């Protein structure tokens, strides 16, 4: 359940932004979460609702954009799609893969008023 800590991280970013930009309410928060980031979106929504109570982001909608996993296959010398960290290269079957995308956890943008 590190999603609780992640939600607190999101709230911190939202609050820093509110202090900087001077908005009083957040209507929606857009996150980018990679398929390999080890984050459960349902737990994220649940904890986000809990930590934002009584804050500028209370009742804000959480929009989660999935980012598919992508790795560099050293054998093929090309990028391939991966769904999990232990996937083999779909072309050559090698495990010599380096994840290049899909492990990010980012606050992308906010809709505020």
């Amino acid at each position: 359940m590190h999603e609780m800590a992640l939600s607190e991280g999101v709230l911190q970013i939202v609050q820093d932004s509110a202090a900087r930009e001077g908005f009083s309410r957040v209507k929606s928060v857009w996150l980018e979460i990679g398929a390999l980031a080890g984050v459960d979106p349902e737990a994220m929504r649940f904890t986000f609702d809990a930590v934002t109570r009584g804050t500028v982001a209370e009742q804000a909608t959480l929009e989660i954009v999935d980012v598919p996993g992508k790795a560099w296959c050293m054998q093929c010398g090309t990028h391939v799609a991966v769904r999990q960290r232990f996937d083999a290269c779909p072309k050559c079957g090698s495990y010599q893969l380096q994840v290049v995308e899909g492990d990010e956890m980012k606050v992308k943008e906010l809709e505020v008023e």
Partner: protein
Amino acid sequence: MMCTVCGCASGEVTVEGQTLDRDHQHDEPGGDHSHHHHDHDHHHHKHDSESTHVSGLDHGDHHHYGQGPARAHVPGLTQAKMVQIETDILSKNDQYADANRHFLGHREILALNFVSSPGSGKTTLLSRTITDLQGDVPVCVVEGDQQTSNDAERIRASGARALQVNTGKGCHLDAHMVGHAMEALAPDDQSLMFIENVGNLVCPAAFDLGEHHKVVILSVTEGEDKPLKYPDIFAASDLMVLNKVDLLPYLSFDVEACIANARRVNPDIQVLQVSATSGEGMDEFYAWISEAHQRVSDGAAVCA
């Protein structure tokens, strides 16, 4: 006094019974301050009773964390608009981690972050390592557990200074907690700092503590498919220590399959087979630590 380093908000997290508070003063770690004094004699000291088990250090060596964040209400406009953020959720943690890394690197302290399931033998492995190494190099330990200071007491019994961090409801240590712990421990230059993370193969994977290496410990009494079940932690670790190998004759654990699984997740992971009780393989582990420490010293020399 407002925290000038981190502006930390906290509550249930304690360091040896002392609640980490927003209003505290940071000392420069490693200076002549050996204590971590908090200016707060107000409200949430719900763990006062725990401070009676303080031992070893005179400032109280037990941190305890866990409550929600600070609240902020900012008056402003009512017109809806989009604000671009593009910030990593863990950016704040990563800033603390960078500060920790700087502190450690500058002082040539090797920091290892030990992660595993509960019961893998982490504390036994660390106790033995401390007993065997402390004649050569000073060691201090940051102990993370949700509750109790049992592990810190075990570590102290082996002769090293240890600081217990209780994470309360938290399932992992973060870089902020470790920064405070380092302040309190004030590790010697060119020493070793072991961080024993909360027993959990999931959450600690995401949190950079500023350590030089994550070391995952897997015991042969667990399943050889754990690297596939919990890939993130094996992907984040540089070394897998396969512990309790003295029990292999009594088990059907497939060592080769386990290592193959770990390498599927992380082709670069190094593997050592040890038994912290019989001592088998421990010299190789110490050699690995010594080489890692040498790289830290070489890095500091390059920066100097």
